């Protein structure tokens, strides 16, 4: 029997950018402030090693970066639907079963025929290994140089 899930919230993990030239001159991407929401601590049942391969095979990196930190939809620090394994599954399945032709975001829908529960849990296990690689600003001389130069620009 087909499973139906209730989509409570649809936030993060939403994805590809349908922009082509739309970003020209508007400030660049990657502009969202880094948030420091702690990584979830809920139980993980999947296999992270298997999930790593699936993360690549299923092109998750395309929008979320290879480390979940960069790209169109970074999620490290913005865990949202990734709070628990079940919420991740719910998010993946939701639009596939409810409104596959009219998704509320551009995140591809994943029905269980396209991605099994086991595969999804493996991906989740891999995602949960992600950590921020962002150093403190004081430890990045390049960025401090840029700020200092801007401060010194002629008024």
């Amino acid at each position, binding site marked *: 029997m087909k499973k139906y899930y209730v989509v409570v919230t649809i936030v993060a993990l939403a*994805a*590809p*950018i*349908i922009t*082509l*030239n*739309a*970003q*020209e*001159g*508007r*400030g*660049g*991407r*990657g*502009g*969202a*402030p*880094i948030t420091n929401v702690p990584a979830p601590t809920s139980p993980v049942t999947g296999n992270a090693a298997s999930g790593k391969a699936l993360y690549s*095979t*299923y*092109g998750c990196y*395309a*929008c979320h*970066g*290879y*480390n979940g*930190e*960069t*790209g*169109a939809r970074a999620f*490290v620090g913005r865990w949202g639907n990734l709070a628990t394994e079940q919420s991740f599954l719910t998010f993946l399945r939701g639009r*596939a079963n409810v409104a*596959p*032709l009219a*998704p509320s975001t*551009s995140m*591809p*829908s*994943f*029905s269980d*025929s*396209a991605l099994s529960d086991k595969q999804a849990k493996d991906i989740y296990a891999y995602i949960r290994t992600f950590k*921020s*690689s*962002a*150093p*403190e*600003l004081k430890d*990045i001389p*390049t*960025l401090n140089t*840029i*700020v200092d*130069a*801007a*401060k010194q*620009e*002629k*008024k």
Partner: protein
Amino acid sequence: MAKPHKTSVGRRGFLKNAAAGAAAGAAALVTPTLVEAQGQGTATGTGTGARSPGAAGVPAPTQAQIDRETGNVRPPVAVRTITRPGSDLMVQTIRDLGIEYVAANPGSSFEGLQESFINYGNPPNRMPEFITALHEESAVTMAHGYAKAEGKPMLALLHGTIGIQHGAMSVYQAYYDRVPVLMIAGNDPDFIAAHTAHDMAGMVRSYTKWDAEPKTIDEALVAIQRAYNEAITPPMGPTLVVLGSEIQKDNAPNAKIPAYKPPVFVTIDATRAREIAKGLLDAQNPRIAVGRLRTPEGVQRSVELAELVGASTSTAATGGPMSFPQRHPLCGPGADTTYDYTLGLETAGAQVSIIGPALAETAATRDTVHIGFGGTVPGAGGRGGGGGRGGRGGAPTAPPIEADAEASLPLIIEEVKRQLTADQKTRIQARIAKHASANHEARVTAITQAVESKRAGWNGTPISTARVYAELWPLIMNEDWCLSSPSNFSGGHHVQLWDHNKPYSYLGGQGAGGMGYGAPASVGAALAAKARNRIVINVQTDGDLNYSPGVLWTAVHHKLPMLTVMHNNRAWHQEYMFVEYMAGVRGRGDDRAHIGSTLRDPYLDYAKMAAGYGMAGEGPITDPAKLSAALKRGVAAAKRGEPYLIDVITQPR
């Protein structure tokens, strides 16, 4: 008066003397169909429609033509002595127009002209200098990039028919980008039939602004001047002159180069100039929204006007060339964002907007098929510049005045100077000081917020695109630089991090969104930079480079100051995401979305590719800690006039 066309060999009667042995060798290269057609005497005819089609529907070449094409001819024992070839006059005309470069992939239909480019004048091969292109698409896009950097055309020289079609995509991009590109195509009706046409320009007419095929040397010289004027007059665009091989080569002892008459630009009238000047001076907080102007002189005039009236300004400089300096003290929201008078210069949405004619309107008047996205109306985004962003908080907007903003600026400036009172001057100076302070604070706030976000993935592998732009900036911030390739696929981080203060700081998008633009446009920008102590930074997407990698050789051959930094995400990544989305919507999973949209199995090695073209470089770099040092080496090389390529394995976006 035009000379009558000669028969197939005619002017090349010497071909009859070609070595018989060579002919035998050539025959072996000819298909049975062509041999049969040739035997029926269906060689090229008059060039005006009298050809008999061969079995394949096109006239077959004669043996003499084949010999020539395959390099089996010998120079004639005696030839006509040409003391003043028409092509010398053509080159002099082009030189007089200030054309710096001519880019071409060689073609026999313009051999007369090419010989003049490289040998005529003292010194020869200067103004213009002959630039060797490996493909006509590259040649035209070089001209596209050059024009965006300098605000004036260079020349692309195209072989008859086949060269035009090779270059067609680039012509289309330049047309859509409203960029002036001057093109000349050769036409040799006596040679290979497939390389000539009754209406040579017809194949690109839908997306060129103007074309001509003069029949005499005198007409040709006028046409070249006209093509130049048409190209630089709004709506700017590519123009094409088709020059027959006869008038290139024939003696022209009595021809004279006509006196050049600069184009007349449509400006606002004096009454409107007075009104605008009064509006700017009477306002308590005027605003000038600057879009994309035509030339650096126009940018300079916009700065002069803003400073005269103390107007805060907006700019399109982070989206493309020829706009207001981004870090000018008056550029930004200013001390007060409630503007009581707004003037738009090539932008819509202001209280008074001056906008040049739309290319779409020009196209609509032609009896040809209009090709376009329908977005070339002013302010609709065809120009990528600031439309509708200048009038916030001000009075209601009005329909734009159709005139050239740049040409209108001197009239407004003159009126401002005439009307400006001492009291106003004092008030304006005080306002400028407030705006400058507020804009500086806004800038510091914005950059502080921006660098916070750029920390994300800073030490990650593959390397974040933000880090690529961030590491570049300290290395070039004190140089005269030009960012040449579109940055939308590589995150556009320069918009927040870099200062776009020159008319050529950032050259913007492709025009029509076609790939294969970035590398050749960068070479064009580097041609502009070469004599101006400027360096070009080309953040190059991998998919784009593979359309025309031969331009790397051109950059090396001509010693161009260009640093190419690969945004190597090993895909046509936008398309990859599109396919993923489609597969996801259809519930089929994304595990096959890479088919046809990624560059893997094997990965391309761009440092080796560069080396193959003679370009120094390094990579692939995957360790972010090694990036800065590599970029330093690259910037140093570019400053020495040695193009350099760094292959960086990057995050997808």
